[in-house]
């Protein structure tokens, strides 16, 4: 019997109300205090910053994610594992707070797709403007805002996607019933919502003109929208940090019996390496952005040379995070590639230990290369050569992955369902992205390439190859496990065969126009460069990519509701979530502890078992397990 859930019981609705109230309180508080102090009442910078802060706090309080922590502060007990209101079903459940990592994973995933689409829409808008020289319809100030938002919103979308994959998969892959800190998990998801609202809100606050990198002095003087941009990024950072904390604790403490580190599915290695970076480096973008906010709010002078500051300090602080950040974006995707290839090639992952360790190799070296973004910045010249060496060094662990992937499929028995297509496409695109890296890493050639479209081509290729294609592969692959239904294979293939060539056109086009002299972040380019045709191609490619994604979304939505029911191990994977769990997965995953008795990727080894339920061990005495009475039917949605 389903009780009707009132609109105001849905978390998202309450959160938005809370955010509105918080914004109003913030505005009122600042104006009130200023009036009391005898200052001119309306200071838009201070008022809107505090409004953004209170708005976010208001959202988080009202959405309900802080409930148990407040109880603990008041000395009240809470159940060991927090349960969600059973009246919330379907939409209401996903729009409210849940502590189940699978629900949270889906929340992350769907939000990621929405946010990525929004960022993509921004790109389509300004790509249309770039079809020809001259201003078609988008004035430079609006162009700068839309271009900036495309960058930062897409970054938010990628972090959400990484969160989706890590949070959904890690507990399942290590045989745990949930993450180490379920309430923190919910918090880390929900704070993204007000953060993205702040980012989009900049559109209505005069925009911003700095690019997502927000360099001062420009960012200290840019329009008011800059404040909500800085604040929004700050809160997205909270999500990264807390999410990462949870992953590390989970991987270190909740692995099943027999699952040594080198018997974990390789995806867990990449999730852990990603988490290590996100936990630590993210603080630096928070710090650098906060210092710019203080410059704007309090007249502070960190980056103003006239007052003793140094603009290069910002760049050091900023890039110390933002370079490792790119490995946060791609490492989990590379983990998906390593995880899926053995299944579709029916062959072990080649050199599993080397692949696992290479993730940490990339993470560690990734901390040592940030100043390659600053070769032309005017920093101390003697820093450039050491950073060139460290930058090129990243190619070594990355190369290990590439060679291992090829060696895995070599002499395999490949089948080409949609997930495999996206994985293979990802490899080739990430290869293109990676190979376009050394010209940037070598200082002399970077003098030509810095701030051009070559860089744009380089990072789009690495992002599409390291994040987007693997993320799509993961969605297709785990779709039947998550939803209990199969996606449409034909639409999946159409999606792939549209997206792959279109992306190549886009990427190679961007690299070419960059080499020829096209700078980044410009609404209008000189016809003398003769790059009009390339831009037309790039824009068409962008549209094709967009359409292919729409096809994918239709596929996902329709199949989740009406697709063919599947409950079996459709990919014949050895991984525990496929081998040991029914579909859809019950609320707390494994009904009893699982045991690891073999290696994860022993395809082709006769009789090899990887994981099993503890009680299905032959000739073993089973103790009476304590079970609750048979609860409600595990719902498929």
């Amino acid at each position, binding site marked *: 019997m389903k009780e009707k859930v009132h609109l105001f019981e849905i978390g998202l609705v309450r959160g938005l109300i809370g955010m509105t109230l918080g914004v109003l309180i913030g505005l009122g508080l600042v104006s009130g205090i200023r009036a009391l102090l005898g200052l001119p009442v309306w200071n838009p910078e201070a008022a809107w910053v505090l409004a953004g802060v209170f708005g976010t706090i208001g959202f988080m309080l009202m959405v309900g994610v802080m409930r148990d922590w407040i109880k603990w502060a008041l000395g009240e007990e809470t159940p060991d594992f927090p349960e969600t209101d059973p009246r919330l079903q379907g939409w209401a459940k996903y729009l409210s707070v849940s502590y189940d990592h699978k629900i949270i994973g889906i929340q992350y995933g769907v939000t990621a797709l929405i946010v990525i689409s929004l960022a993509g829409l921004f790109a389509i808008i300004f790509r249309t403007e770039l079809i020809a020289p001259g201003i078609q319809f988008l004035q*430079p*100030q609006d162009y*700068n805002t839309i271009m900036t938002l495309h960058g930062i919103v897409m970054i938010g979308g990628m972090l959400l996607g990484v969160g989706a994959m890590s949070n959904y998969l890690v507990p399942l892959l290590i045989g745990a019933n949930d993450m180490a800190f379920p309430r923190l998990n919910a918090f880390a998801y929900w704070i993204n919502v007000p953060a993205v609202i702040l980012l989009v809100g900049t559109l209505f606050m005069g925009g911003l*003109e700095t690019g997502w990198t927000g*360099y001062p*002095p420009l960012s200290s003087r840019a329009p008011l929208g800059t404040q909500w941009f800085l604040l929004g990024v700050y809160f997205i950072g909270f999500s990264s940090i807390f999410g990462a904390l949870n992953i590390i604790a989970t991987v270190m403490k909740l692995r099943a019996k027999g699952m040594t580190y080198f018997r974990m599915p390789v995806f867990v290695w990449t999730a852990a390496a990603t988490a290590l970076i996100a936990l630590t480096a993210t603080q630096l973008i928070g710090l650098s952005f906060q210092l710019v906010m203080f410059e704007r709010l309090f007249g502070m002078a960190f980056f103003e040379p006239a007052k003793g500051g*140094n*603009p*290069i300090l910002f760049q050091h602080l900023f890039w110390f995070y933002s370079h490792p950040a790119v490995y946060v974006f791609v490492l989990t995707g590379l983990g998906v590639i390593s995880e899926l290839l053995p299944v579709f090639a*029916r062959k*072990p992952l080649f*050199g*599993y230990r080397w692949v696992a360790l290479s993730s940490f190799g990339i993470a560690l070296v990734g901390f040592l290369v940030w100043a390659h973004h600053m070769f*032309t910045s005017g920093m101390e010249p003697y820093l450039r*050569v050491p950073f*060139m*060496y460290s930058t*090129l060094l990243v190619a*070594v662990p990355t190369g290990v992955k590439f060679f291992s992937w*090829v060696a895995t*499929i*070599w*002499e395999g*028995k*490949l089948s*080409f369902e949609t997930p495999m297509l996206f994985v293979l496409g990802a*490899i080739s695109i990430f290869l293109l992205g990676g*190979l376009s890296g*050394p010209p940037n890493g*070598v*200082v*002399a*050639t970077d003098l*030509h390439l*810095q*701030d051009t479209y070559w860089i744009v081509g380089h990072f789009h290729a690495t992002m599409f190859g390291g994040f987007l294609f693997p993320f799509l592969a993961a969605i297709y692959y785990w779709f039947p496990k998550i939803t209990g239904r199969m996606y449409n294979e034909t639409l999946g293939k159409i999606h792939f065969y549209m997206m792959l060539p279109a992306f190549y056109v886009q990427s190679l086009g961007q690299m070419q126009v960059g080499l*020829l*002299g096209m700078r*980044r*972040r*410009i609404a209008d*380019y*000189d016809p003398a460069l*003769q790059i009009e045709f390339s831009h037309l191609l790039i824009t068409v490619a962008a549209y094709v990519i967009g359409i292919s994604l729409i096809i994918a979304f239709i596929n996902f939505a329709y199949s989740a509701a009406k697709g*063919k*029911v599947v*409950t*079996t191990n459709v990919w*014949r994977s050895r991984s525990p979530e496929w081998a040991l769990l*029914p579909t859809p997965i019950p609320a707390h995953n494994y009904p009893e502890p699982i045991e690891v008795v073999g290696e994860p990727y*022993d395809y*082709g*080894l006769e009789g090899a078992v990887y994981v*099993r*339920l503890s*009680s*299905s061990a032959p000739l073993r005495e089973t103790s009476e397990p304590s*079970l609750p009475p048979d609860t409600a*039917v*595990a719902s498929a949605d």
Partner: protein
Amino acid sequence: MFRNFSRSTVRVLIASNHALFRHGLMSLFKKKLGVKVEIVAEVTNFESAIEVLEKHEVDLVIVDYDDDQLNQEDFLRRFVGGGGQKRIILVSLSNPESAMLYDRRELPLSQFEEWFEGWQEASTKLKVSSAGVDKRNNSSRSNRMKHFVVAGFLVVVLTVLLILGAGQVRLLPVAASTQAQPIDQLFRLMFFAIAFLFSLIVVFMLYSIVVFRRRKGDESDARHIEGNTKLEVTWTTIPLIIVLGLSFLGARSLAEVERPDPKALEVDVIGMQWTWRFEYPRYGIVSNELVLPVNKQVVLYLTSQDVIHSFWVPEFRVKQDLLPGGEEFVRTLRITPTEIGSYKVRCAELCGIRHAYMESPVIVVSQADFDVWVAQQTGESTDPVERGRKWSNQYGCLSCHSLDGSKLVGPSWLGLFGSEVKLADGRTVIADEAYIIESIRNPGAAIVEGYPNVMPANVGQDLSDERIQDIIAFIKTLR
């Protein structure tokens, strides 16, 4: 219900206390279905069921859901997963319209068939795959070598094709400086390497995709190869050596690119939102065009008056950011132009609204022509209007104020002098000399309605009063 099972025998275990239930099911199987069903056993309690399952291969276990002598939870837990292909359905006499699967999902009978068939297919596949590797051994040593050789050859082919293809496309602008030489050399080297490495991986991938496909109906796994330490060490060490070598070459090229000529021509480059100014201290010239003599090194001293800009002429290759902050933050860039011609410097660091348009001409001329230009520049015009036009260009006024009435960032100068101007604060003033002087020295004091307050306060810091008078004279002529 069991349409496709004529090929295999389904071995069934029925667990129920009720004789009626057991008999009913048996006759259902035998009579109605024409499926080869082997009733392995009928049991009435849990322990016997376990016994049977441990001793015999059973495909399907049917459990009487109503039977409270059977502890379903215990029973089901034992047989979830573990690689077993058994399927368990719970059937209830009190609820004859549906069957419950072991994962406790209810399916109506119409969907049950679908589920059952799907399971049957999958468990057939599972059976075959757990039998291990395909015994047909077509991967002998010589076969493997053959694959490598063919793939290797194709790598070379694709590399060559890529390099030839890249040669057909415009990639780099013409190289017009000595600094461009080592840089372009590095580019060429890296493009070859990129073509080769791309081919290496992609060819092996495509080869696998074509040759190492799964044959239709083959459900066995591939060869169990876990790794090869020697190979790992090789493909770690060789790239390491390559990147160290490339870094070394890069460092050497950088030194070459930055080699200073003590006799270089000195030019101060002042960047500001959104224009360039070039000052030649040796000659006392201020210009908004960068004129350079060919084959002579120029050392540019770069500084910004506001935010970070960047100096870049693509044909010269090198670029350097301009930082605000005066002396301490001046940076140098050395260029030796080698081709006479007209180029453009375009700002390469996002600097605000008109970043896209922050460009100035860069003109490389012969030494003789350069000397002529210098003479022209240093001789100052006697006409204040002409001088005023020059200052308007050089001090960046015209990057925001048009001369033809069009609206850029600030008000157009056409028809400005002597006109009535409505200000943002409500006042109406006449645009006379005092007004213009105030607009330059203290821009924020009288903002015109409808225009943003973005004129930098320091834009006129290098403008002497005499030069401002020249500008006023120039503005007066714009009717």
